[in-house]
């Protein structure tokens, strides 16, 4: 590699020499810096993906000057010192679209200014920096290498509490960094509470820990908090960000996106975390519980992860989002980039996107009935199932759904570089009750209950109308007539449902055949009777419309409708009069409802999808691949997320892009060690939580005091010589205010709190309805998660936050309650003040802070219309607005 460098120096020399004789040439001359800051970034952005380490179209690489000179199939691309003879420039500047580089749709063409820069650089002899290295081979990229458990370095013993510290110490020593001392105990307690359960400790809890004389006080507290059910709630919200929890949205009551009752999945997350369900098992259940545990209603809730992507209008958007976020969330891969073209940075081809999509091609969403509730508007578990087993997957030319390449159906598969084993896809035969939902024991009973409820409601509205009518009761009342028909219809429906329930029961093995046939015939008759009542009601309704119709046009229309309703009634009467045939059967009382799609664009719902007896097994295969111990990405991505959420900053900055475009880990060995620990301890997240929070690194102070030399060496704390302070997430802020006021409602689980009820609700914030168009104002002020994508929360500081904390009802209602609680524990002023700082902010006030507080209380007390209580409430208000209230110090 020395030759090109020599040539380059020679070129430079030539330029300098020529410049001396021909001053004009020196003007606009270029140097290696111009190349690095101007030319190379352009080439990297627009050319390297096809002419670099990833691909070598035409045998050409452009990632070093030497390689450019060396050229490809068409010879050298540049002639240093002679832009006119340089093939590169000719192709970049070509007017003919077939000639021009980058090709159409592959990258933006170079502007005249950019071409001039390249020209100047070549004319200046194409100077390059010394020892320019080509791009690394994509196969060698760090995150594609297997996770190998690294040896723990021998760290400095005094500081080190566990191996995490050893990895950090190693770098500290290399860089001459001295870790900050341990934070005060009170602060450590506050940190642990906020981090592990998402709420501040109460006065009593603080008291208990402060008085714990045991050397293991910290570890005891960690154990206690990890066992606390509130831990599941706290960490569920983290994973709800990553896994894109979103309640449904739609137009009026019509569902368009996500699913109603998606909270079942949220509750599954909370419960699973509280049981420390292994991370790999969580992934398997979320992707494929319907294949792995087809009869386990609790586990089926996990597939809400996929049900959430339901989108009524467009299957492609639905599946694109599925592929994108399965890839980003579990694997740290930006597969979405290859929907339209081969990946520009990673070794994935366009077809890889569609191979990935093929895993999901058959799946659809349905609501499974829960015992006791057959009304799907009220409840039902959103879950997935394979519905279209034969549906082919096609590559879309340039990603456009109007241009499928139907010549070659694409089979499910994974990118070559991550294929460590044969993918085995085994179709799954489902147990009968999984797809014949009418056989589930609770189904018939739930239908009967619903029919009874509907009848009662119909009777109630009729009664109300009749009661109202008494005042002027002469006229026949159309409303009453309609309501009367509603009652008749509800009666007939209840009768029919009861008969069908009995017939289903009689159809089970062990019942004698004659009884079965008899009940079946009864059920058929019941349905006929129901149909008859419906038709009669329709005729009556049309007759009423005709009576009320004004104008010729409307009159004619009403007549026509009455005629057709009457004909339908005659048909129903005829059917009802026929004997029931032996083979005739009734509409089963199903225990699930398919989530309606409208992909066919007919303006109405697509034909319903039946529940097949088999599942493709594709998603199971995908889940097994993702959770295979040999997968290089899964555990690393999870460990990085866990680390970031405890420590405030990740080890790999781009949490959803572990590809070549993303950033390198600051501590690759630590990351691999954490990933190994996760896998080797049965994918227990709790194990990682415990490891991280019991490290010395976690327990350090975040202060910069006395850290001048550290600051000089590592101003951004990349190497963890202090804790980085962070802001509380939106939910933790709101929950903390309520917890301090003693008003937090500890109820766990259940339907999301609707927007209307949120203002007065005291539930934890994770239970609030949360969707693209319905988010809580207070929470939104503090960087609430965007439901569409949130792999990491922002931590902005904007004036709206100050206004929310100063003026919201939430805070102003709470401050008096908090002051009262604090005053109950101690009556004297200094005691109150000390307790207020300790409980609200997590630190002991200094003398000067106490003095300032005494003074402000005096000032408030001197105002007219005030009281001691009010002054104290004001003081609490101030502490809630103190920087440290929203800060994890």
């Amino acid at each position, binding site marked *: 590699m020395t030759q090109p460098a020599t040539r380059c120096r020679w070129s430079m020399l030539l330029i300098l020499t020529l410049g001396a004789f021909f001053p004009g040439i020196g003007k606009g001359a270029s140097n290696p810096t111009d190349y690095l800051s101007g030319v190379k970034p352009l080439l990297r952005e627009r050319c390297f993906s096809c002419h670099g380490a990833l691909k070598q179209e035409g045998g050409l690489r452009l990632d070093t000057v030497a390689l450019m000179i060396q050229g490809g199939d068409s010879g050298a691309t540049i002639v240093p010192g002679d832009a006119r003879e340089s093939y590169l420039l000719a192709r970049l500047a070509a007017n003919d679209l077939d000639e021009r580089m980058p090709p159409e749709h592959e990258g933006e063409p170079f502007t005249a200014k950019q071409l001039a820069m390249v020209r100047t650089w070549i004319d200046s002899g194409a100077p390059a920096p010394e020892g320019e290295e080509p791009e690394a081979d994509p196969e060698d990229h760090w995150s594609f290498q297997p996770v190998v458990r690294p040896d723990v370095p021998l760290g400095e013993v005094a500081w080190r509490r566990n191996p995490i510290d050893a990895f950090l110490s190693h770098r500290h020593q290399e860089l001459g960094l001295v870790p900050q001392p341990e934070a005060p105990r009170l602060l450590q307690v506050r940190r642990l509470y906020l981090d592990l359960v998402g709420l501040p400790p109460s006065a009593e809890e603080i008291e208990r820990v402060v008085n714990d004389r045991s050397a293991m006080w910290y570890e005891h507290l960690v154990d206690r908090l990890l066992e606390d059910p509130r831990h599941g709630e706290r960490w569920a919200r983290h994973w709800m960000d990553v896994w894109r929890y979103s309640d449904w949205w739609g137009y009026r009551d019509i569902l368009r996106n996500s699913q109603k009752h998606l909270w079942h999945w949220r509750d599954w997350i909370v419960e699973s975390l509280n049981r420390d369900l292994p991370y790999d098992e969580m992934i398997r259940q979320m992707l494929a519980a319907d294949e792995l545990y087809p009869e386990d209603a609790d586990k089926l809730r996990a597939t809400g992860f996929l049900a959430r992507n339901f989108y009524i209008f467009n299957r492609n958007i639905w599946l694109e989002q599925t592929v994108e976020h399965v890839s980003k969330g579990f694997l740290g891969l930006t597969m979405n980039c290859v929907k339209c073209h081969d990946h520009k940075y990673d070794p994935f081809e366009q077809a890889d996107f569609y191979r990935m999509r093929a895993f999901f091609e058959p799946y659809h969403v349905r609501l499974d009935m829960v015992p006791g509730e057959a009304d799907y508007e009220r409840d039902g578990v959103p879950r997935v199932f394979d519905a279209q087993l034969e549906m082919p997957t096609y590559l879309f030319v340039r990603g456009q759904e109007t241009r499928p390449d139907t010549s070659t159906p694409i089979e499910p598969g994974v990118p070559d570089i991550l294929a460590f084993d044969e993918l085995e896809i085994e179709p799954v035969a489902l147990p009968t009750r999984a797809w014949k939902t009418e056989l589930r024991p609770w189904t018939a009973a739930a239908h009967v209950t619903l029919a009874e409820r509907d009848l009662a409601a119909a009777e109630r509205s009729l009664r109300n109308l009749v009661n109202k009518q008494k005042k002027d009761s002469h006229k026949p009342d159309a409303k009453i007539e309609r309501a009367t028909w509603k009652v008749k219809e509800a009666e007939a429906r209840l009768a029919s449902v009861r008969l069908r329930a009995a017939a289903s029961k009689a159809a089970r093995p062990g019942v004698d055949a004659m009884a079965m046939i008899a009940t079946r015939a009864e059920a058929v008759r019941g349905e006929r009777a129901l149909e008859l009542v419906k038709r009669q009601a329709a005729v009556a309704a049309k007759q009423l419309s005709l009576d009320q119709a004004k104008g010729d046009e409307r009159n004619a229309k009403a007549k026509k409708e009455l005629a057709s309703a009457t004909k339908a009634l005659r048909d129903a009467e005829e059917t009802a009069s026929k004997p029931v045939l032996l083979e005739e059967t009734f509409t089963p009382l199903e225990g699930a409802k398919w989530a309606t799609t409208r992909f066919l664009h007919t*303006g109405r719902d697509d034909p319903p999808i039946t529940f097949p007896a088999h599942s493709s097994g594709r998603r199971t295969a995908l889940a097994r691949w993702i959770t295979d111990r040999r997968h290089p990405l899964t555990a690393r991505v999870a460990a990085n997320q866990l680390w970031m959420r405890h420590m405030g900053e990740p080890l790999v900055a781009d949490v959803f892009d572990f590809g070549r475009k993303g950033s390198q880990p600051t501590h690759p060995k630590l990351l691999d060690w954490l990933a190994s620990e996760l896998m080797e301890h049965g994918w227990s997240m709790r194990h990682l939580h415990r490891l991280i929070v019991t490290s010395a690194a976690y327990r350090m102070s975040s202060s*910069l005091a006395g850290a001048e030399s550290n600051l000089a060496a590592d101003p951004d704390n990349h190497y963890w010589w202090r804790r980085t302070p962070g802001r509380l997430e939106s939910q933790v802020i709101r929950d903390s205010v309520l917890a301090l006021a003693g008003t937090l409602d500890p109820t766990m689980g259940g339907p999301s709190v609707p927007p209307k009820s949120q203002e007065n609700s005291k539930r934890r914030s994770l239970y609030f309805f949360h969707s693209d168009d319905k988010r809580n104002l207070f929470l939104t002020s503090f960087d609430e998660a965007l439901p569409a994508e949130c792999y990491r929360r922002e931590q902005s500081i904007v004036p709206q936050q100050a206004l929310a904390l100063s003026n919201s009802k939430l805070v102003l209602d709470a401050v008096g309650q908090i002051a009262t609680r604090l005053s109950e524990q101690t009556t004297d002023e200094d005691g109150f003040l000390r307790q207020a700082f300790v409980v609200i902010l997590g630190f002991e006030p200094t003398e000067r802070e106490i003095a300032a507080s005494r003074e402000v209380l005096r000032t408030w007390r001197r105002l007219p219309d005030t009281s001691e209580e009010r002054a104290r409430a004001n003081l609490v208000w101030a502490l809630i607005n103190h920087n440290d209230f929203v800060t994890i110090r």
Partner: protein
Amino acid sequence: MEERTMNHDATYGSTRRTFLSRAGMGFASLALGAMLHRDGYGSDGHWSPPTGEPHFPAKAKSVIWLFMNGGVSHMESFDPKPMLTKYGGKTIAETPFAETQNPEKLALARAAVPDANGQQRNKLFPLQVGFRRHGASGIEVSDWFPNLAKQVDKLAVVRSMWTTDSNHAAQREFHQGRNRIDGYFPTLGAWVHYGLGSLNDNLPQYISVGTRPIWNKKDGLYLGPANDAVPLRIDPDNPLDYSRPQGTFSRKEQSIGKDYIDKLNALRGERYPDDDAMAARIKSYELAFRMQTSVPDVVDFTQESEETKTLYGIDRKECEDFGTKLLAARRFVEQGVRFIQVQHGGGGAGAWDAHSGLKKNHAKNALAVDRPIAGLLADLAQRGLLDETLVVFASEFGRTPGSQGSDGRDHHVYGFSVWMAGGGIKGGVVHGKTDEIGFHAVEDRHYVTDIHATILKQLGLDSRKLEIPGRKRLVIDHGQPIDAIIA
């Protein structure tokens, strides 16, 4: 009026380095700078946040963005099509314009999301209003806009717009430049705010007034929440979310408390020196406390003359609401706010969404906005502000030449109109055209981002220079300035 200095203070640099180098950087760009820095960008010298200075000399300082929610009929506002009346009741196939429905021409760049609405309607629907020529330019304006017609020589009407989303998410598309299928992207106002910051310390810098019926309220997205529009109400008593205590808490008590908080934060700073976040939070509280009084002041019109209020139609019930919003917009422009987004008409997907009863619907909506908009243009001109204030009138799409039901029009993406005025835009010109029934934009076609590009150019911004690492934008995102209408 406050001295017009760049304000770049009250935000958060999450690292010491960014915080220390904050002087001269934008409020919003700083927040983003910190974010990106945190993500490992910016250290290789390829990227730096905007300085708040234009990239080249600007012709406009502020933008008033008037958005008619629901979709205005272009044929019945600024692009008259007498052929509709001539062939009214005929199907398009029966007219000489059958070619407009050539499936190739109907194929959208992106797949549409159809439901009951957003369909093509085949039976031509006659014009529901008359047209007249106005002003020296003689541009035709419908009789529903008699006052605006008098200002027509200030307008550059672009009659050749197109978009791709046949449903109301086209509102989002118009602001972010991408079809909803592609996801969420920062809106135009967010880019402007990100690029230029503010000219006033005491006010929110990017303001949204009126309802945004169906699209996400986040504007900044990957540029950070500091670039979200601040939603405002024109109500001095309650202009801003949380702008006054939702409980008993006097201004005096609060101000005593504020001084105390400052003191406590300073004392805490002794143990935690050089804490960027704390410094930023202190600034954010100062700004918030100032906003509590300065925002109500701007929306308090007691200092405005009756004549001015009349000009905006505030004395008339039918246009009081929108007139109030536009007078506030002018006052915000005077105070140095960069981007004021004023939406007209809530309800469903937007007031202008005339699937039925178009005549009644548009007559009423036009009555509500016509006088206020005309008043705004006249007022800006008489105060010498129109030269540096760009006013834009737009809606998410036009409406179908054919009828929906008996008397409505459906959504129409293939051709519609937008106009601009002031801020270095030519007055009294028409640019581009649609075919004879207003179906397709056929000359000088412009996608919505061309409007963005035009505005950014007038503000002195180069959208490519604003681009940030890891968020590659496409050519279509940047658009092309409509040079033909730039003075």
